[in-house]
């Protein structure tokens, strides 16, 4: 496969044709903030946190869905990018009810970690305080829509790693939400195999093991990577 040469933050980089800017940066040890990206499933560019500047392109591009090109000049950190990342994070916090203090994922949450690592000390937008429910009808797992950021990681692992197709997205705009089968209680789903991959994939406290209380919901992402590596490379090994 042809190699492409480009620069990321001034650093000359060679990447395989077809690789994303995010993959190229990762291989070069350059960290770009992400939220909807999950190793092992394809990218959808949903969260806009990995936006980067590309010389000659006026708009910002998501690193996870932008392919490398010959001679591309990418910037992953600038005043403008920090400004937009902070806006994106604040809007995510304002859109649902992210009450970290009483959340199962407190201390293990990717949204919470992103917020402090990007310097978010408060939210400048009016909180919407929407009314969303918690689905605890499943025997093993719960879904708290208040904490959902609609990254669709759960949908992608459900369809493309487990192959069950239980999780989906319904609605439009701020009323978009994750559903189970034809918008039925999770516990009544025929297609759910109870594998728990969606719970492992969730970046926030939206999906949790029943019985977890504040700060107890820790995940093991390695399990997903293990399965994907086994399928794609026929190697039953963990990344480390």
């Amino acid at each position: 496969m042809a190699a492409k040469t480009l620069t990321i933050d001034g650093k000359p980089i060679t990447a395989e044709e077809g690789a994303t800017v995010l993959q190229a940066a990762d291989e070069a040890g350059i960290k770009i903030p992400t939220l909807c990206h999950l190793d092992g499933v394809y990218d959808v560019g949903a969260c806009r946190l990995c936006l980067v500047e590309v010389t000659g392109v006026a708009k910002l591009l998501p690193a996870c869905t932008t392919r490398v090109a010959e001679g591309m000049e990418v910037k992953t950190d600038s005043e403008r990018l920090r400004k937009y990342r902070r806006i994106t994070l604040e809007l995510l916090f304002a859109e649902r009810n992210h009450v970290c203090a009483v959340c199962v994922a407190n201390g293990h949450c990717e949204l919470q970690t992103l917020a402090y690592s990007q310097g978010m000390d408060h939210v400048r937008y009016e909180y919407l305080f929407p009314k969303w429910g918690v689905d605890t009808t499943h025997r093993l797992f719960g879904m708290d829509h208040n904490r959902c950021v609609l990254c669709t990681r759960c949908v992608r692992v459900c369809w493309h790693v487990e192959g069950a197709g239980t999780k989906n997205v319904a609605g439009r705009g701020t009323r978009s939400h994750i559903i189970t089968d034809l918008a039925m209680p999770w516990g009544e789903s025929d297609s759910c195999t109870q594998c728990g991959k969606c719970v492992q994939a969730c970046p926030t406290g939206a999906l949790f093991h029943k019985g977890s209380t504040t700060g107890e919901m820790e995940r093991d992402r390695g399990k997903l990577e293990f399965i994907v590596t086994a399928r794609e490379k026929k190697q039953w090994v963990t990344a480390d």
Partner: protein
Amino acid sequence: MKVRLATVWLGGCSGCHMSFLDLDEFLIDLVDAVEIVYSPVVDVKEYPENVDVCLIEGAVCNEDNLELLHKIRQRTKVIVSFGDCAVTANVPAIRNQLGLGNRESVLQHAYITNAQDNPSVPKADGIVPQLLERVMPVHEAVHVEYFLPGCPPPAARIKALVGQMLSGVEPKLEGTQLKFG
């Protein structure tokens, strides 16, 4: 001259003030540098004039909170939103999810539905403040200079921010010092 420091407790659990007391021996250094002119831990009834710094714990939940907050803003140079309730409205704002009219429904739920004896909503004009329709973070009601998140902010974090202010540098918390929850 000593810095005139106030601390205020609005709609919160007082956990932030407990964390403030967790400053332990730093409190002794603090006494040399500041004069505490108003606080739940000192017996001053009226919020004074010419306050340099005010740490505000809690969300803005009722008419008293709002009235005091406007008074604080007029009489204070630097306001710090102290803890998650002040910064995000946090747990007290969970009632906002019930929509407009939540004021009536939460009182109904607490004082009528779940009451064992004498079910009645406490009502005494001028004594029991009316709940606001919607709980707000402090910066939604008045301008706030600095934010000190955490539920509660650990003592080390309070010390970092207060220390920066006292040494005259622009307060700036970074990384895990900004963690909510």
